[in-house]
């Protein structure tokens, strides 16, 4: 198994390289440059002036040279400086990261916290009343476009009912520390809701399907025969066996959360990595875009790797090395 896993790690390297090269190429081939893209329509510069600026930024050097330079710096963990405010890229990433973590972390916790019990309960009694009711609702949630849901929720809870704030992380008038917690939660409510429901729907259905299938297995029936209650049999045996595929899928759900985060962060003005990424693409802030693309790819590969590890642990054939 070690061989299998180390092979997977080694193979990740060309993938990362491929991603970075592609991003670099697309970024520099796309029209628009950081010189003009960062400004407003009232601050236009002549093409001649823009050309001079490009030279200053080193944007006129041939692509392979710039790529090589960038790679060299990255190897030393130097991601360069943002073109927009000349601060180190890592500093801007570090600033935005906690916000994305907060949003996605909560979304993940809620997803697991709701999807697992719901899925197990529904899968435990397929075609039962809970299964039918939740099935329809989960299905609807799964098909709901996130930006539409966000708009409607904003219109209802922020504008019509005035229960929740419309945007941002925290209100000015909120006290810091624990007493400001309520305010922070109020601000988190809508973005987290919009981010959660999609993966929740997907995951709950998956849990349900796995449990429904597993409960028919012999070992579950045997457990029941031994006298375990329905519930105990469900959780101790059916769910446990359904666990591994669920963990592997988790490895794929996380990247999905991160990319869905982009739209939500934009709609709710949440200052996280998603919004940073989007804004940086629009203003052609090359160093930030490259850094975030690389970091994002590493994160995705890491999670898929974790999923593979879980799968390898579960499947004895892989564990013993009989298949790769």
């Amino acid at each position, binding site marked *: 198994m070690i061989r299998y896993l180390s092979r997977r790690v080694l*193979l*990740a390297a*060309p*993938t990362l390289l*491929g*991603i970075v090269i*592609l*991003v670099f190429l*697309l*970024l520099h*081939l*796309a*029209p*628009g440059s950081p010189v003009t893209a960062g400004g407003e329509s009232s601050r236009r510069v002549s093409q001649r002036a823009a050309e001079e600026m490009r030279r200053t930024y080193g944007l006129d050097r041939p692509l392979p040279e710039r790529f090589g330079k960038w790679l060299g710096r990255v190897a030393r963990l130097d991601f360069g400086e943002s073109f927009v405010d000349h601060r180190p890229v890592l500093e801007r990433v570090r600033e935005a990261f906690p916000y994305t973590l907060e949003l996605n972390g909560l979304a993940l916790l809620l997803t697991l916290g709701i999807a697992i019990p719901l899925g197990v309960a529904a899968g435990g009694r397929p075609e039962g009343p809970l299964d039918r009711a939740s099935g329809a609702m989960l*299905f*609807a949630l*799964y*098909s*709901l*476009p*996130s*930006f*539409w849901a966000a*708009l*409607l929720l*904003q*219109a209802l809870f922020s*504008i019509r009912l005035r229960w929740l704030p419309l945007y941002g992380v925290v209100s000015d008038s909120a006290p810091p520390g624990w007493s400001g917690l309520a305010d922070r939660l109020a601000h988190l409510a809508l973005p987290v809701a919009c981010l959660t429901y999609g993966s929740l729907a997907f995951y709950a259905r998956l849990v349900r399907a796995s449990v429904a299938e597993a409960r028919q297995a012999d070992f579950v029936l045997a457990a029941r025969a031994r006298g375990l209650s329905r519930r105990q049999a469900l959780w101790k045996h059916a769910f446990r066996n359904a666990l591994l595929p669920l963990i592997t899928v988790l490895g794929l759900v996380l*990247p999905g959360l991160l*990319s869905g985060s*982009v*739209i939500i962060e*934009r*709609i709710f003005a949440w200052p996280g990595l998603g919004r940073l*990424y*989007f804004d940086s*693409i*629009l203003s052609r802030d090359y160093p930030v*875009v490259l850094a*975030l*693309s690389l970091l*994002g*790819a590493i994160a*995705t*590969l890491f999670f*898929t790797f974790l999923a593979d590890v879980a799968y390898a642990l579960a499947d004895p054939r892989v564990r013993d090395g009989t298949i790769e």
Partner: protein
Amino acid sequence: MTPGVIATRAGGLWRTLPGSGRAALVVVAFLWLVSAISPLASRAASEIRLEDRLQPPSAAHPFGTDDLGRDLLARVVAATPLSLAIGLTAAVVSLVVGFVVGSVAGYFGGAADLVLSRLVEVVLCFPVLFLLLALAAFLPPSPATVILAIGLTTWPGDARFARAEVLKARDLDYTRAARAAGASTPRILLRHLLPNVLAPLLVSAAFGVAWAILAEAALSFLGVGLPAPAGSWGGILSAAPAYIEEAWWMALFPGLALFLTVSAYNLLAEGLRRASTEKTFA
């Protein structure tokens, strides 16, 4: 795979589709019908009447009017064929590309498999948003661009599936025997693979369409999809946030159409999946 066989299978499929799946099929058929008659709405959809802007739903305008006074119902109807067509085409592109790549990787194995699997991984880990924005920046915003963007980012799923299936089929006795008898590879794959994967293919296609329609709407909403007025539902929605306080109907109705369509395709896919797995058990 004669037409007769396909027809029989299709009939069998309808019979085994659960009730929800059949309802979904009916809805999908209805949407295609709406697409067919949508040219009737195109005049009203593009008629700008500034005096009538932002009118709430009424008898004259069942869905209200938008920020340029155009009838919203007409706009939603007129956007149907485009939204559907893009969804379908993108899903097909994704399926074909994924299938070809996956089959080749699975069948030939070795170096080809290694390289192609890396390609699949690259696309899987590639920042989708970035690709879409970049493509939108330098290609003219046409349905083709959007189809390309969506198709190019969703094929890995199908590729992985195809590869797994081909790996399974490659080692079957049937295949070995056929090879020993001198049959050519593509013929083997076609004759053996296709019938087995037809059902999962359909399921994947249906989910793919739902996903593609959603993706296109998101792109248009962000401003990098199709330009107005020849827009899709996402495009109509992109103007809604600015008027969310005074014209909630601009957000509600196009979104509802979107939701209905995506649900229908997802439901259809789910029904197809259940129908096909039941068949395997039976």
